[in-house]
């Protein structure tokens, strides 16, 4: 019922009657202004061209042929040169102001368990960073495709399943699950790459609209490696977390100093808006101050036993040392 009323209300919002014309006028005027500025600028640019060429040549000499900034650890040259890696984080809400964490779990439960670095982060000293290959590393599974066919296609000979149960405020549960390839490899770093990139994601959820069970994405090991980068230690990552130098979906900054860390693992940021596929530390945190807010909201939503639940948030700290990192805003793109 409310859905129909909401749709009608949205249709009745009083936008300007000539909204289309208003938009077109703005676009046209702004473009014209820009064109005039461009013309003026071109005249000066021609005069400065010779100097510019010299400058560009200098920059290329110091940064490498593709223009990427190069860092030389320890002041060395040659094989130690690694490009600076951009990192961005897109949260779909403006966030903030919540009095509980982002996810609801049952007390004593933990989030997914399969990551080989779970609470074992200090064995790995360096990890590869990859270039983004849109549509290849993470791809959506078309509706109607069967899990067994995807497994066959991905040659899942040694697989394992892990899942994460999440709860709504009324106490009803849903489950996200992942099948991943689990081969015993020579190093923990290689096991991590298998866990992260040979992977199939699906979701089972019960809601008012019925059961929703669908396959979501599959992942592939990226093909284009930028280089093997040193990573900061778990302790250094925790220090950054405590200083508020982390990324999350909002609201967690108020508890960063006091939050209890439930687990730490190294994972890869794989979203398509990332220019590079790079390692990050993922902390699962909770805070005592969240208990009251969660209990209240679960009670209001008809949950009979809110005391059984607790709320947690996932927060991320980039794993690359600062000298290799450039934090940027996510670029606009479409999948």
């Amino acid at each position, binding site marked *: 019922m409310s859905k129909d009323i909401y749709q009608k209300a*949205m249709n009745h919002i*009083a936008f*300007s009657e000539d*909204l289309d014309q208003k938009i077109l006028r703005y*676009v046209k005027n702004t473009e014209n202004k820009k064109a005039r500025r461009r013309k003026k600028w071109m005249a000066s640019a021609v005069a400065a061209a010779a100097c510019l060429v010299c400058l560009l040549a200098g920059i290329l000499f110091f940064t490498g042929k593709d223009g990427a900034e190069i860092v030389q650890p320890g002041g060395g040259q040659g094989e130690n040169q690694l490009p600076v890696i951009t990192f961005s984080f897109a949260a779909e809400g403006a966030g903030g102001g919540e009095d509980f964490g982002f996810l609801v779990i049952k007390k004593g439960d933990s989030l997914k368990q399969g990551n080989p670095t779970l609470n074992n982060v200090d064995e790995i000293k360096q990890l590869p960073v990859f270039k983004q290959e849109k549509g290849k590393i993470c791809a959506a599974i078309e509706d109607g495709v069967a899990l067994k066919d995807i497994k066959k296609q991905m040659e899942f000979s040694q697989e394992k399943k892990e899942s994460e149960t999440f709860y709504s405020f009324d106490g009803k549960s*849903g489950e996200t699950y992942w099948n991943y390839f689990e081969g015993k490899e020579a190093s923990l770093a290689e096991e991590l790459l298998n866990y992260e990139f040979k992977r199939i994601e699906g979701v089972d959820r019960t809601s008012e609209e019925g059961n929703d069970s669908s396959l*979501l994405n599959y992942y592939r090991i990226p093909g284009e490696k930028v280089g093997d980068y040193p990573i900061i230690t778990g302790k250094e990552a925790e220090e950054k977390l405590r200083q508020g130098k982390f990324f999350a979906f909002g609201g967690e900054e108020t508890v960063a100093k006091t939050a209890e860390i439930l687990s730490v693992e190294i994972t890869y940021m794989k979203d398509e808006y990332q220019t590079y596929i790079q390692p990050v530390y993922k902390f699962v945190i909770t805070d005592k101050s969240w208990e009251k807010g969660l209990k209240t909201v679960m009670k209001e939503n008809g949950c009979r036993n809110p005391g059984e639940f607790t709320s947690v948030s996932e927060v991320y700290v980039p794993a690359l040392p600062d000298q290799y990192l450039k934090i940027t805003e*996510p670029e606009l793109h479409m999948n």
Partner: protein
Amino acid sequence: MDVCIQKAVADYGETVARAAFTYLKNVHDAEDIAQEVFLVLLQKEPRIENEAHLKAWLLRVAANKCKNYLKSGWNRSREPLPDNLEYLEEKESQVLSAVLSLEIKYRVPIYLYYYEGYSMKEIAGILYSRSATIGTRLARGREQLGRILREEWEHE
């Protein structure tokens, strides 16, 4: 001006403005954002595969523009000014006000799911998120909305 832009504005001008309104709660600001979004379309000339792709691209740009707008210094220093919705029918005004009272992370998925008719997977694509996250947010948003409206209607 490019005929494609004119067609895009005719087809999706209000759609983009509605999405921006969901973020900003204000018609005037939403129309400003819509202008900016179509300027980006003209300047960036993205490779668009089909109509659905264009619409999703515009909605994503609108979402980013709105987030930047909300983060800007001017907006941080003032309370958002939600429009007076009294010109709507009473129930419409109540439901829309209730949706707009939700946090952005709940009300935007609700708008994309219940008004635009996108699936959780598609919303995840537009909002740089995961389907499971969107599912959780829709459930939470719905629960909060139900509570707000129940309270409101019980008082009547």
